């Protein structure tokens, strides 16, 4: 094939990537959400399209209309209404939206895997005939490529025109800038946002339907393929559509052109990988090279503290009772973790994965929960830890002698540290979206260039671990895992307590603020990344030993997304949450069909809107209520210790805490209106004489307070007398007596110095008609 032919062959894929990029940009520029679920939606639509054509036998055009005209926009509208509108309403941070879209991704992956299984299908129908058109000479171009290119051009122009030339485009910019202000200006923000979502998901669906016949239809594979097109929107810095389209075509054509070269040796191997993975490499390079993404909303996407439920633990000595309770809780948890030792051998082996996974999750607690950085590449670290420890044990690493298995595991995990450190460097200046994508790209590159390469990842054999020459039994291995987990928990504990813990949390909650008070933000972030990568590496090493094999799929880039979501769901800053999450996933995976745990995590992730801080804080809240209830039911109500009441700070300024002085409005009509309103709503507005009267339990003034009130009353009466004369002359309507009442209106509460709100005691009746509305409350 000539260069031209190769280039033309690249056009089709490039056009699809461009469509995906346009879809991402449309969603982002209309809603401020970088839709990580794009890949999942594409996959789901592709599966449904295939189902309609292959299984139901619908004609292709009808299936295409249903999939792209009904299903895809429908998904977008549903997501907008149920997931993202509530987030936008409470002005959630971009990080929260990012996690919500991750939740959607995980949920859709779960649905797809649950419905159609994890296997690959190669019979996905194409909407275009497998025909080609002669351009010149022998050079031909496929009909699909032409059609896709035409679609890109049409979409780009139409969307460009809408956003630049129409008032709808202006409304979109207004809604993205400030949704609330847009509504206050009469712009139907919900409709604008919904339109953006529908357009975005339609393009996602189109991407899926077009991609599926070129590759195998497989839930994870296709999703990842779409995620790789994020390179395109990063190049566009999240804003420029032409740049996105050109980048997509450029990368794809370059990738295609690479096929005409072959090299020998290691370079040749790298080239081979590049020939099919240029997008992911481009994503990483672009993320490191592009100065700054044009994030919407001032780029506050780093605020991850909303996933976290707690601040730093108190410094100094903890109370005895609290200490004892913590101790008990930990003992209980430990006992539960020991339980698998009593299981049947096969069940025990299933349980092997729990501590390993828990360690991986702990590593994310360190990075996300404690230092507030979104890291989506943990599977890369875990896989590296696994791979390095196996290589060490096999004596294949840089000619080092073979180490005994356990030592190999520890050393292998430590060897991940430099990788963590290097990944941490971009994290120093990046937050939120950029960091999330960067770590994802690192994980993906490691997966493609290391885990999936035979040079690194084949021919590894896993020796049973030995201690002093004795092979470890299953039980002994499980105990070893628990010891490792204990080690991880110790690390986490040291990171969370004391000076270091407070400094990390300060970085998480407000990194510039932390820097301002002298916290070394830079090194702390690096430390968090490095330690986290080592913990993840140890977890990965254990995971491999527990499943007796190294499979690249176990450490695929999408795993990172799933794991991250799980950690956030179970409480990003909760070490216990990490262990529970691991147990939850492993248990469901063992008991239920594939994809169920993914589905469950996805559902829980979407429920995050209702339980900020994750399950951990929800459980803590429920436990607190339960304890309160139990305590209340066992203690005689009269003997209860006074519960701390949130004290409202009394107003500073020249207004005392008096409530309900009503003077002369000077507007006869208003007086009448209010009077009517009052007589109509006596219960709600108890101002008439009958409804009032001294309430039981009203605080009695102290002698000093009573004296003060009397003094004030005398003074106010004198003042009111003056004003009555003044207002009487200006308004010309009689309002005598209106203010006499206000003399007695001073509440006793402020004088008595308590925080209680003054209660109503007396009032005069309302004058309806043209008379001035008067009344006294205190």
């Amino acid at each position: 094939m000539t260069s031209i032919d190769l280039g033309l062959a690249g056009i089709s894929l490039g056009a699809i990537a461009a469509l995906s990029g346009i879809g991402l940009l449309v969603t982002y520029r209309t809603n401020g959400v970088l839709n990580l679920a794009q890949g999942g939606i594409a996959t789901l639509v592709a599966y449904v399209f295939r189902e309609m054509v292959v299984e139901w036998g619908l004609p292709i055009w009808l299936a295409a209309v249903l999939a792209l005209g009904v299903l895809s926009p429908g998904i977008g509208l549903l997501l907008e209404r149920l997931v993202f509108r509530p987030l936008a309403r409470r002005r959630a941070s971009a990080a929260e939206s990012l996690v919500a879209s991750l939740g959607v991704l995980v949920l859709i992956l779960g649905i797809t895997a649950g419905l159609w299984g994890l296997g690959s299908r190669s019979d996905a129908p194409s909407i275009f005939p497998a025909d080609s058109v002669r351009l010149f000479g022998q050079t031909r171009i496929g009909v699909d490529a032409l059609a896709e290119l035409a679609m890109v051009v049409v979409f780009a122009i139409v969307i460009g025109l809408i956003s630049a030339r129409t008032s709808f485009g202006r409304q979109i910019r207004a809604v993205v800038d400030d949704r609330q202000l847009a509504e206050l200006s009469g712009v139907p923000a919900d409709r604008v946002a919904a339109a953006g979502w529908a357009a975005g998901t339609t393009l996602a669906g189109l991407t899926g339907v077009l991609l599926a016949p070129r590759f195998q239809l497989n839930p994870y594979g296709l999703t990842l393929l779409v995620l790789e097109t994020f390179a395109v929107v990063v190049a566009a810095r999240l804003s420029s559509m032409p740049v996105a389209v050109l980048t997509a075509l450029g990368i794809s054509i370059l990738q295609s052109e690479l096929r005409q070269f072959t090299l020998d040796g290691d370079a040749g191997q790298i080239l081979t990988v590049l020939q099919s993975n240029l997008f992911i490499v481009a994503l990483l390079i672009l993320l490191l090279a592009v100065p700054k993404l044009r994030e919407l909303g001032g780029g506050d996407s780093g605020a991850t503290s909303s996933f976290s439920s707690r601040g730093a633990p108190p410094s100094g000595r903890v109370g005895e009772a609290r200490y004892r309770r913590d101790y008990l809780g930990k003992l209980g948890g430990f006992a539960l973790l020991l339980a698998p030792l009593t299981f049947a051998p096969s069940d025990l082996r299933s349980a092997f994965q729990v501590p390993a996974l828990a360690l991986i999750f702990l590593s994310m607690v360190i990075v996300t929960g404690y230092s507030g950085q979104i890291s989506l590449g943990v599977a890369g670290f875990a896989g590296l830890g696994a791979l390095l420890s196996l290589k060490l044990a096999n004596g294949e690493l840089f000619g080092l002698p073979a180490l005994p298995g356990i030592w190999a595991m520890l050393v292998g995990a430590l060897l991940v540290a430099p990788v963590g450190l290097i990944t941490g460097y971009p994290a120093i200046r990046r937050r939120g979206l950029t960091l999330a994508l960067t770590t994802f790209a690192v994980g993906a590159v490691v997966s493609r260039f290391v885990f999936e390469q035979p040079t690194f990842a084949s021919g590894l054999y896993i020796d049973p671990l030995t201690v002093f020459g004795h092979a470890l039994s299953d039980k002994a291995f499980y105990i070893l895992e628990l010891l490792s987990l204990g080690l991880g928990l110790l690390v986490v504990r040291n990171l969370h307590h004391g000076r270091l813990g407070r400094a990390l949390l300060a970085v998480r909650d407000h990194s510039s603020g932390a820097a301002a008070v002298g916290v070394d933000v830079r090194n702390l972030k690096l430390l968090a990344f490095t330690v986290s990568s080592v913990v993840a590496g140890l977890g990965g090493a254990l995971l491999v030993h527990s499943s007796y094999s190294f499979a690249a799929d176990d450490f695929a880039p999408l795993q990172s997304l799933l794991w991250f979501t799980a950690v956030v769901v179970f409480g990003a800053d909760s070490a216990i949450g990490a262990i529970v999450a691991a147990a939850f996933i492993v248990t469901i995976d063992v008991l239920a069909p594939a994809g169920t745990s993914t589905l469950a995590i996805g559902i829980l992730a979407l429920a995050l809107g209702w339980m900020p801080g994750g399950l951990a804080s929800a459980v803590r809240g429920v436990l607190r209520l339960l304890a309160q209830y139990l305590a209340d039911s066992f203690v005689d109500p009269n003997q209860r210790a006074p519960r701390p009441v949130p004290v409202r700070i009394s107003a500073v300024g020249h207004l005392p805490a008096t409530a309900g002085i009503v003077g002369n409005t000077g507007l006869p009509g208003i007086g009448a209106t209010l009077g009517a309103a009052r007589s109509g709503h006596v219960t709600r507005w108890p101002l008439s004489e009958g409804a009032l009267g001294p309430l039981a339990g009203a605080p009695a003034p102290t002698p000093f307070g009573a004296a003060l009130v009397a003094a004030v009353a005398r003074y106010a009466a004198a003042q009111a007398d003056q004003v009555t004369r003044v207002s009487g002359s200006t308004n010309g309507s009689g309002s005598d007596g209106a203010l006499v009442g206000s003399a007695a209106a001073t509440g006793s509460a402020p004088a008595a110095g308590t925080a209680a709100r003054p209660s109503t005691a007396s009032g005069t009746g309302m004058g309806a008609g043209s008379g001035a509305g008067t009344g006294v409350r205190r």
Partner: protein
Amino acid sequence: MTSVTAELELSGARAGYGTIEVLHGIDLALPAGKVTALLGTNGAGKSTTLRVLAGLIPLRSGALTWRGEDITRMSTVDRARRGLMLVPDERAVFATLSVRDNLQIIAEASGHPDISPALESFPRLKERLSQRAGSMSGGERRMLALARALLARPSVLMVDELSLGLSPKIAADLFGWLATVAASGTTVLLADQYTEQALAMADLVYVLHRGERSFLGAPAEFATYTATATTASV
């Protein structure tokens, strides 16, 4: 004296954020074509009241009527389109949009797509039409916010903290402009801390304290009230 009808009436309004109730049953009536001042310290519930009136926060109990029609459940967008305009205290302009777009959006949404009245009222904006609103000074942004409200031709104009962060001169200018708007028959609600200008303009004064109404009366009476209050708190 002719009788005045209430344009907007809030009764028994309870509202808040999350588990915290901010308004503990507020009654409020805005006389049509008059200026009402809503005063109170920080945290008294002024902004919350305005947000309730604009429909940004749902009422937990109580009702809101507009010229006799119950609009408790009406959406923010519909209220804005029908002339109930709130100028919030912060983020009152689209910072990333040009001044022209800022004006055009509201002009189109309210069905009067001509932006020239705003430029006549605030000639300074004419020089800045293509500038990003976020890059203007605080006073100019406030001006733009008011100019936007003007374009919507509101029947009720609610302004939150007009003088916040402005130099006295600019604040005086804006209050002067607001007075002309009020004189043309627009019902105005001014939420503010205790500023002289607001009191000078107002026909009716409400004082909120800790989410409850603590005073209702004419501005002249308010002077007495504060005098009383000052003594009481001493």
